[in-house]
């Protein structure tokens, strides 16, 4: 890992800095010269139509994929702290482990002492309301509980950066709203740098400090929008705010032509 890039002017220190990052899968260009600064401790939401390379971008940040071109600088975490942990899209809990074992996975892989594992896992299972279900296996949980366990696993690992790949997309509306609120509550306590991917504009405006709008195939950055809503945020109250509606409308305006373009592209 590299030293943080020296910020130009008065910009806040970046945790992640992408400079003209491109990714090619064979002849298909998934990401085209993406440049982005993600400030330390900010909640960055990347929103875009499906197939815009958002997941590719996140996988590159997670170290699960490599860029074809460009440069990525990720500031070093504190000594002993993992650089990032990912909340994956869909079911990623190990079916052969209980909720407890899943949540403890990252810590155990890092060889953290078992009494500390117990303390940390207990804390995050309590925060996510899963203590009572600690000995259950994933197939015995509802979809919402599984996603909470997956979030607990990532938070318990205490990463410097939290990467979230459409973590709520498979959930129903009620569960989604509740989990967004829970996520905000936990995040507001820890203030980690978050990179969150979604295709939902509402979700982006609800959660983010910074919204990155991406274009479809090849993935490019269309706009970066700052969200000024104060924290802590209340998800329901926020949606009642007229400024919320305006921002959602504005971002939809940015996205709409991209969605249309993506559709036209698929029709070819």
């Amino acid at each position, binding site marked *: 890992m590299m030293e943080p890039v020296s910020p130009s002017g008065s910009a806040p220190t970046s945790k992640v800095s992408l400079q003209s990052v491109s990714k090619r899968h064979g002849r298909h260009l998934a990401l085209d010269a993406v440049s982005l600064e993600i400030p330390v401790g900010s909640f960055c939401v990347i929103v875009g139509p499906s197939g815009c390379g958002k997941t590719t971008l996140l996988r590159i940040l*997670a*170290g*699960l994929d490599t860029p074809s071109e460009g440069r990525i600088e990720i500031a070093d975490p504190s000594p002993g702290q*993992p650089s*990032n*942990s*990912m909340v*994956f899209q*869909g*079911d*990623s809990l*190990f*079916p*052969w*482990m209980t909720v407890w074992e899943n949540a403890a*996975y*990252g810590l155990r*892989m*890092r060889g953290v002492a078992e009494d500390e594992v117990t303390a940390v896992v207990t804390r995050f299972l309590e925060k996510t309301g899963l203590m009572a279900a600690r000995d259950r*296996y*994933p*197939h015995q949980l509802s979809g919402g509980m599984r996603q909470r366990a997956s979030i607990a696993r990532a938070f318990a*690992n205490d990463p410097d950066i939290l990467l979230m790949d459409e973590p709520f997309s498979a959930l129903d509306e009620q569960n989604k709203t509740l989990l967004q609120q829970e996520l905000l509550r936990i995040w507001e306590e820890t203030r980690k740098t978050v990179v969150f991917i979604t295709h939902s504009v509402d979700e982006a405006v609800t959660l983010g400090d910074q919204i990155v709008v991406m274009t479809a195939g090849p993935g490019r950055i269309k706009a970066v929008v700052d969200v000024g809503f104060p924290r802590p945020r209340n998800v329901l109250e926020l949606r009642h705010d007229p400024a919320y509606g305006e921002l959602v409308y504005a971002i939809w305006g940015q996205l709409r032509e991209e969605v249309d373009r993506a559709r036209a592209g698929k029709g070819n």
Partner: protein
Amino acid sequence: MTTIITPAKNITQPIWWTAFTSDRAISIVSPIALLTVWEVCARLGFLDERFFPAPLHIVAHMLDMAGSGGLWDNVGASLYRLGVGLLVGGIPAIAIGLAMGLYHPVRAALDPLISATYPIPKSSLLPLILLIFGIGEGSKIAMVAIGVFYPVVINTAVGVRQLPPIYLDVGRNFKASSWNTFRTIALPGAMPLIMTGIKLGAGMGLVLIAIAEMVGAKSGLGYMIWNAWELFDVTTMYVGLFVIALIGFIMNSALDAIERRLIPWKNA
């Protein structure tokens, strides 16, 4: 018209009835029924008792042999060879199967060897095995081990390969070492298919131990059967067959119990 929906009739039936008609009851009744028919036919002279002694005669003879201790020596010898062969063949098969499932080069190197040698009837290897391992315990154990090895290695490799790749991504993201990827992801993830392989392998081992003991052995159930054939002691031959069938049944039930223990997360 009014449609009236009432609970299905069988809900009101007594519990003992549903228990009685359960699969388990049927699977106990069917062999007993077959033996009863055999018994009656033998007693009434429809079957030649020289070739098909009545089951009760066989059971009586079995008890005699068990009382004199001769049966137990042979059962013990066969079970010992079977047990050691299961371990000698099964453990490397699991290790190699996991490596084949996880690493492309290992698979590329071993797959052709395994595919080419798998169709060789294992019993046809007996002369070669006798040549290599001699006439003692080694050749018997080797036969069982070969029989166990193939189904376990093939099922293990398939078990790892059919794991959703997301689990390996989780392992990489949480910095699991190679050993931990083996231990916490590949092994438990492939466990359902590994157990299937072990069950097939144990059955194959039982077949092969009986064959191996018929040639150049001085103990074991195979030896007992072959010796009885040479002495035209048909009832003892049947005792051998009955005991092998019984061992097969007990072994399968034991493996089922182990499977339930090892894979508590599999939906029952």
